[in-house]
């Protein structure tokens, strides 16, 4: 913590950053919230611990529009998220000072966050400065995805339909996702109207399928969609299933390499036809 504050002070002093996006403990309520730190402001309230769950990358586009140099405190997963945004040219790397912090896992509702179980890297893959220990990387297992995969199709549908039924279509999942940034979301599109606006099973199914699909090969598993969902729909499961699929099919782990293009925007003539399933001559 001390090292981080020192580093940030140094960055401010050198004029390397205009603002720093980080976590602040509200002295009054004790809650940890995302905050924009300015030079000599509130820096003593800055924290980094297991309460810093939120992915801050979502705030970057607004900030880089307002300031020329933005520092950002990154956990491993947030760093992956940043990498996906950089590779999509949504944010200019020259405007970012990435402060990678060795993360030891975060807690949601007092329990270890599910996403930490599958965490492939405790240090952000994009960093300008690294603070704290860099732990070893490992491949995620996605044991929960495998559990679902063992079920029969009908069982799987029963499992998901129950959740889809509950969706209220508040779009919190879309709004918090750094990768969901379409000018007009397909769910709001009038023509063709792929997804009916009312919250009912068929339309909700369409929404959740397309949400997951649009994130395939782009989702870096920050888990925010599931965390903010008021109905606790297991969106990470679908994201992970596709992350797993994309790795198996194309050998890509989104966000781990800030240079690698999302697998669905590039093509390969070498892909075997078998990836589409079924028989092919």
């Amino acid at each position, binding site marked *: 913590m001390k090292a981080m504050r020192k580093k940030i002070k140094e960055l401010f002093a050198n004029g390397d950053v205009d603002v720093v996006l980080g976590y602040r403990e509200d002295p009054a309520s004790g809650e940890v919230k995302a905050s924009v730190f300015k030079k000599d402001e509130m820096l003593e309230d800055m924290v980094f611990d297991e309460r810093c769950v939120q992915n801050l990358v979502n705030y970057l586009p607004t900030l880089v529009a307002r300031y020329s140099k933005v520092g950002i405190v990154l956990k491993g997963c947030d760093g992956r998220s940043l990498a996906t945004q950089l590779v999509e040219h949504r944010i200019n790397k020259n405007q970012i000072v990435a402060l990678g912090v060795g993360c030891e896992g975060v807690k949601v509702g007092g329990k270890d966050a599910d996403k930490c179980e599958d965490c492939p890297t405790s240090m952000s893959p994009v960093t300008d400065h690294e603070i704290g220990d860099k732990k070893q990387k490992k491949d995620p297992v996605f044991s929960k995805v495998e559990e679902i995969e063992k079920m029969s199709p009908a069982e799987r549908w029963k499992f998901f339909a129950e959740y889809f039924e509950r969706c209220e279509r508040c779009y919190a999942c879309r709004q918090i996702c750094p990768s969901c940034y379409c000018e007009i979301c*397909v769910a709001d599109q009038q023509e063709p109207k792929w997804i009916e606006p009312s919250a009912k099973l068929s339309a909700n199914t369409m929404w959740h399928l397309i949400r997951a699909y649009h994130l395939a090969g782009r989702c870096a598993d920050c888990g925010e969609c599931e965390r903010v969902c008021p109905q606790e729909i297991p969106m990470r499961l679908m994201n992970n299933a596709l992350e797993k699929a994309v790795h198996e099919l194309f050998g890509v782990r989104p966000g781990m390499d800030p240079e690698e293009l999302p697998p669905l925007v590039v093509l390969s003539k070498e892909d075997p036809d078998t990836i589409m399933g079924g028989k092919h001559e």
Partner: protein
Amino acid sequence: MQIEKEPRILAILCKWCSYAGADLAGTSRFNYPANVRIVQVPCSGRVDPIMIFKAFVEGYDGVMVSGCHPGDCHYGTGNYHARRRIAVARRLLEFVGVHPDRMHFTWISAAEGKKFAEVCSEFTDKLRHLSGTEKTLARKELAT
């Protein structure tokens, strides 16, 4: 009434190869099931997986997508993109509970009228076998 019970198939075909193949199947008088509804798209690269999702939600028993053989795409590379997208879409659909046999993705050239007829028959057969299993995803709420 017999036709009602046949599985309903949506075939999304590219204009240059597969649709021409289907056309050839027709003009050559190859027999293929009458329960296949064809949607023509300019290229298999135009196939947005949302079309496949929608087809299942609207109650189709099976969805088939076909384009030009790899290397033969009229636009050069459309079918390579399609291959990746469809591979991912398939994994997602299977994951939420669509039976793998309800999806069929293949390449059919303009000359392969026979293949088109065969693929349709085979696919229909497969779907007939699934007639006892639940049509997952299909919407139940009727506008009553």
